[in-house]
């Protein structure tokens, strides 16, 4: 029996990058996976991949900046699979990997980042609470090592990821008595954005790899996905309020 058999996991931003890897990993562990996406065609591609492997998944429209879509995605997940055991908020602003000129950046750019990572985290937590409490489930936020260390270039991204870490610490205390665990994962993973950066600068990949003790960027499904599976399964039932850094040893800050 797989570790997540009879469990339902909703992954926001599950159509590509890290989110796709999380969805595939959870499905591989036996979960019924709900792939929340803005573009259903990308979600359906993930669903097909899961199906090819013998798993179960469905795609739902879920722009996390629209709270009604979040609520509808949760309702559809519960209707189809009988409940929701885990929600993984992975979606980020499409501009999350773009450098920000901190001292001159407009507030409108901040608002774009915050809408997906802070306001949406609030709405997702509110919408998911009762369903997660019913199943003694878990809420996971995909944050970043930048949310611990700060970032000279990606300052807005770092701050919204830090906000999620702050949310995790208090919400874990608040929801612990209800049996709901709240954690974060801070991955360092190969992403389409990083692939584009490597293509633009042939030397960049080598420089990045040289900073990682394990010598490579994480694979979304094979390296980051298992961390999410672990936080969804019973083996982590005594873990809450934590940020699990999955970075090949690149980041060791406590």
């Amino acid at each position, binding site marked *: 029996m797989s570790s997540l058999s009879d469990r339902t996991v909703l992954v926001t931003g599950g159509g590509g990058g890290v989110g796709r890897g999380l969805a595939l990993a959870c499905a591989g562990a036996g979960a019924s996976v709900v792939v929340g996406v803005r573009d259903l065609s990308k979600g359906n591609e993930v669903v097909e991949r899961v199906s090819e492997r013998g798993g179960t998944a469905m795609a739902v429209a879920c722009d996390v900046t629209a709270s009604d879509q979040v609520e509808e995605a949760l309702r559809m997940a519960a209707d189809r699979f009988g409940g929701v055991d885990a929600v993984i908020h992975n979606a980020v602003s499409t501009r999350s990997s773009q450098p920000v000129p901190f001292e001159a950046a407009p507030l409108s750019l901040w608002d774009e980042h915050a809408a997906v990572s802070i306001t949406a985290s609030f709405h997702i937590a509110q919408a998911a609470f009762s369903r997660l409490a019913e199943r003694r489930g878990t809420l996971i936020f995909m944050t970043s090592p930048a949310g611990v260390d*700060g970032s*000279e270039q990606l300052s807005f991204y770092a701050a919204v990821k*830090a906000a999620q870490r*702050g949310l995790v*610490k208090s919400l874990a205390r608040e929801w612990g008595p209800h049996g709901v665990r709240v954690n974060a994962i801070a991955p360092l993973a190969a992403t389409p954005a990083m692939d584009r950066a490597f293509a633009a600068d042939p030397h960049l990949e080598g420089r990045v790899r040289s900073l990682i003790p394990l010598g490579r960027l994480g694979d979304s499904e094979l390296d980051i996905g298992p961390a999410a599976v672990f936080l969804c399964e019973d083996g982590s039932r005594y873990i809450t309020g934590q940020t699990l850094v999955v970075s090949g040893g690149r980041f060791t800050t406590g």
Partner: protein
Amino acid sequence: MNRESGATKAAVVVVSGPATGLADRLAARLAEDGRPVGIVSPRGADVAAAVQAAGGNAIGVAAPPGDRPALEAALGRCTGLGPVAAVVLAFHPPSAGRARELVSLSDEEWDAGCEAPIRSCLVGLQEAHHLLSDSGGAVVVVVPTVALVGADGYVAATTSGEAQRILAKSAARRWGASGITVNVAAVPLDALDDAPDEATGANPSGAAQLSLGPPALTPPDPAIGIASLVDALTGGLGGLVTGATVGLDGGAVMAP
């Protein structure tokens, strides 16, 4: 990086949002220590008048939190005090100490308790950079210590505090070469609360303090600690410490 020496102290500007209690006390303390003080807050003019009545040198300006042109103009007026060595940013809602379950918060309450203070801090950091970019200086961002460890009922405050703390770290990384240091002062949540319980007069943040444990020391008013931190960051530690979080809660939180 400007490093002060001798008896003359450069000005410090204190910028705060709707909750002004700690900022008011800090401004008064800085003035007692001989600092020219700029106070940018909803009550700035009143606080400056009080400081002046006590023999201090102060300019008070009201600027709505997060209003970039208004803050820029206010900081410009504060340069009338002479060279500015430091800017302190303290943005918190008046009821920061009041516990609320996340599921009970309206969108408006979430924004007031979490996201609006972050936006104000961001604009404050940007304008502090503009003010200090020529001569260098120190920026101090004030957050509650619960941001470091979390507390039941304080999701909005901790989410906001951690975002502000990492904005400060990112700014520290970026502006170090310009001689601007950016550090964080972490203070007890009750020090940020301007709205004690009407019935008892007590500060309502006891629940948060319970999750932190007792302090190792008996902490004085955090305003004294922040004033001392500003002295250090513009004096002997000028240009030496940046991106750090300094706990001013008597050791209740000893997070790394």
